[in-house]
């Protein structure tokens, strides 16, 4: 593949995936400007190694992996704690967060602990299968299935409360 082909291939991937990568980053960091920076850093990093990417079909998963690393690096730098340890039974009561009944789904999604929200984001935004999500998050497929299932049940419960 010539450098022109590599450039075109990368541009095509950037055009195809930048929106969903931005949305994923936004839901991880809750800041549009920062999400944009993280996607930009991700694609820049990907561009530098794009020519060495052997399996073009794996490009999307690879971009998500880079973005997750960028986000982790950001949190490391900012020394912010992610809510990885939170459990579903620690979900705030809607009343406690000041959220009224009939609240928008965005608030319900925000109430989900990160470990349940992230696989759901990858499934809904990225269109990944549970096995693919497992590969991205270094989890077993069964663990991903459990998390997305519990995330939906929790959302349903929150929406009905």
């Amino acid at each position: 593949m010539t450098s022109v082909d590599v450039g075109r291939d990368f541009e095509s991937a950037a055009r195809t995936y930048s929106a969903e990568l931005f949305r994923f980053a936004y839901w991880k960091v809750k800041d549009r400007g920062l999400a944009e920076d993280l996607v930009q850093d991700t694609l820049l990093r990907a561009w530098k190694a794009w020519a060495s990417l052997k399996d073009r079909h794996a490009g999307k998963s690879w971009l998500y992996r880079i973005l997750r690393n960028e986000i982790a690096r950001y949190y490391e730098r900012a020394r912010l704690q992610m809510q990885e340890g939170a459990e579903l039974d620690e979900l705030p009561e809607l009343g406690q967060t000041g959220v009224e009944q009939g609240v928008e789904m965005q608030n319900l999604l925000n109430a989900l602990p990160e470990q349940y929200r992230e696989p759901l984001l990858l499934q809904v935004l990225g269109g990944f299968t549970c096995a693919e999500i497992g590969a991205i998050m270094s989890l077993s497929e069964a663990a991903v299935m459990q998390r997305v299932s519990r995330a939906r049940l929790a959302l349903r419960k929150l929406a009905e409360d």
Partner: protein
Amino acid sequence: MLSCEQLRQIKLTDPKRVTVGIRLHRLLCPKCACFLDKADALDRDVEDALRIDVPESLVERILCSCDPASASAATTESPRLRSRVLAALSRIFGSRHS
């Protein structure tokens, strides 16, 4: 035929999956049909909520910073820093021209 529990588990883990078994179960089990309708509605709401607006010309800005015209020209400069510098320069020169 799928059991009610199996069907609900599939719907919660892989909501887009539609099989003959699922369709048949939906026809024969009113309770699961109701569960599936609610699950579909919830998934539509989740999808709508997650699809926030993307900044205009995001991809153009990214491609500009990545400069795909030349693989060897890939910069090690942080795009964040670069875009901030560009924005500052644009403010300086923009104000002089106005």
